[in-house]
């Protein structure tokens, strides 16, 4: 599978294969995510093998593993790590079945096969290698996700991570739940300006054969249309891409998932689907969408979700979480791009297009108008 993804170039990057296989824990999707991240770092990030592998693991562990700490079944993990199997009865025990099911559904724990006939209740299992380090800390290990999350949380709240005191309850005991809840809601997406975003998602967006699924999160809605038009316009400098804009409004009185299914009745793999989430999505709507994961597997999807909304949605999207890549737009979004470059792209599309009003030109003209408006405001 890894060889197929890289084609002839597999020979050039094959030193990474054993590590990718090892870190994938036998999960094909995780292996592909690792490979894509590694390949991006080697080819565009100009990182060497070791750096690229470390960054790929970090990237995928952030993208792939959504870990709500309050429900993180560390006791189960500790036992599985020691015994290399999980007792089948754990899935039916009402006290701990939720933790066991979560562990498997979220891919924190991989079932390796069926039980041996001599031990029919013991399912061979391993901890996902990307979070294995979080279970047993080692002196030379990189920071665990929890440690990193605490540091990020402290940083976000203007607190030095050195000497950080955990809040306590009335009895003077650490109030872990409150802390974990806040940390869980801390953002962990890559924060990018428009140039960085294009570098990260360009391979999927510009490639006809490769469909990627991207969630872009933002603080303010203002200017979002310009970002979408910029991405679609740039894609059109590589080939003709149309863009299907869909707005899905969640809430008690709406049926956003049905609306999406209707819009995807005749899916077009040559189209960019730009899906904006609005309204108050209910838990059941979010879970319903999570179960439709396979609908999006062959499509180029750009989802736009407000930053605070996404934090709430993610806990209901263990599958989508693993299917999409997440990026956050930074405040100084248009840093690094000039109106001259956009005008050059408009001229370029005009020069190669047979159409009188190509979609790429229309999109980039909108961006240009938007940026000129920003300039005149300043």
């Amino acid at each position: 599978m890894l060889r197929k993804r890289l084609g002839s170039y597999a020979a050039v990057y094959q030193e990474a294969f054993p590590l990718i296989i090892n870190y994938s824990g036998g999960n094909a999707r995780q292996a592909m995510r690792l490979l894509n991240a590694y390949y991006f770092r080697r080819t565009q990030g100009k990182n060497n093998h070791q750096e690229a592998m470390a960054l790929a693991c970090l990237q995928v562990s952030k993208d792939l593993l959504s870990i709500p700490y309050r429900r993180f079944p560390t006791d189960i993990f500790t036992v599985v790590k020691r015994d290399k199997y999980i007792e089948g009865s754990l899935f039916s025990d009402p006290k701990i079945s939720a933790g066991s099911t979560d562990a498997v559904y979220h891919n924190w724990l991989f079932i390796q096969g069926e039980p041996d006939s001599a031990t029919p209740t013991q399912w061979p299992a391993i901890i996902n290698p990307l979070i294995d380090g979080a279970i047993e800390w080692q002196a030379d290990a990189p920071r665990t996700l929890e440690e990193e999350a605490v540091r990020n949380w402290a940083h976000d709240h203007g607190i030095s991570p050195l000497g950080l005191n955990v809040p306590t309850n009335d009895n003077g005991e650490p109030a872990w739940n409150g802390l974990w809840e806040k940390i869980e809601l801390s953002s962990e997406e890559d924060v990018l300006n428009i140039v960085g975003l294009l570098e990260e998602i360009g391979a999927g967006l510009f490639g006809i054969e490769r469909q990627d699924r991207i969630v872009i999160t933002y603080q303010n809605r203002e200017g979002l249309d310009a970002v979408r038009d910029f991405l679609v316009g740039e894609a059109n400098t590589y080939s003709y891409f149309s863009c299907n804009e869909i707005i899905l409004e969640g809430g008690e009185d709406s049926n956003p998932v049905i609306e999406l299914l209707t819009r995807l009745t005749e899916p077009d793999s040559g189209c960019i689907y730009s899906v904006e989430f609005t309204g108050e999505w209910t838990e059941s709507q979010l879970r319903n969408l999570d179960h439709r994961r396979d609908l999006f597997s062959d499509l180029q999807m750009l989802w736009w979700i407000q930053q605070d909304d996404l934090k709430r949605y993610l806990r209901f999207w263990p599958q989508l979480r693993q299917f999409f890549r997440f990026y956050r737009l930074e405040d100084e979004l248009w840093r690094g791009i000039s109106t001259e470059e956009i005008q050059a792209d408009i001229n370029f599309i005009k020069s190669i297009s047979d159409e009188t009003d190509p979609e790429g030109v229309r999109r980039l003209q909108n961006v240009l108008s938007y940026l000129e408006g920003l300039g005149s405001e300043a």
Partner: protein
Amino acid sequence: MSKKKRKAVNKRKRRSMNTKKNQAMSEMERRVIVWDIIERIAFQPNSDQECSTWLGVYAKTLHKLWGVDPVQQHFSSSHIFDIPFLNMQCDYNIESVEKYSISLMNLSAGGNYWHCHIDPRYFSYTSLYSSSTHYPHQQLNELEKDVETVLDGMLFHPRCHTHIDEIGVQSIQLDPDIGGLSSHEIRIGVGIENPYVFLFHLRYQCCLVADPARQEEKHRLIELFCNSIKNKGQNMSARDLCNFG
């Protein structure tokens, strides 16, 4: 050489050709014409806008022939771009269709593998001639072979060349089980006087994904140029040349 002298040489050659008007042209004469037409219609963008479009299309299509992921890039008349699978960068500076410089550099460590200047103040044998004659209509049955031979020398296997593994670039061998080629198959033409021809030949040479991919590109270009020459040698768009879209 002055413009006046060059015109005189061309005039003598044309006169010599005209005397043979009713005779079939020799293979060599036809191929001189074909070479000249190909360079003129595909590799001599006239205005700044044409140069910009040519380089733009080139930039946006490189990934296809090389079988790599597309990356966001804009090429201008002076630019550096990566060829990551060879750990190499190409740095070019085009001043005109006759004057440019080009370097092949180590991507991670820096430093030049190879550097070349083309200075039009000095002449070469090939710079002496420019054809104003059409390909002989009565010999169109020879056209395909003529185009193939010319493209071989111009792009696919330049007569004067260096192999990149012989100038210090790390050797790679792409997966031979699926037709992958070795970097020894990359021949960098060392006497290419037109910057656009150089860039275009580099595009073909760095295609190592599979020999059939090279063959397919070769046949596409032969057909493209044959059709164009049959249609009176109209200028070829960069879009068609680079197979954009």
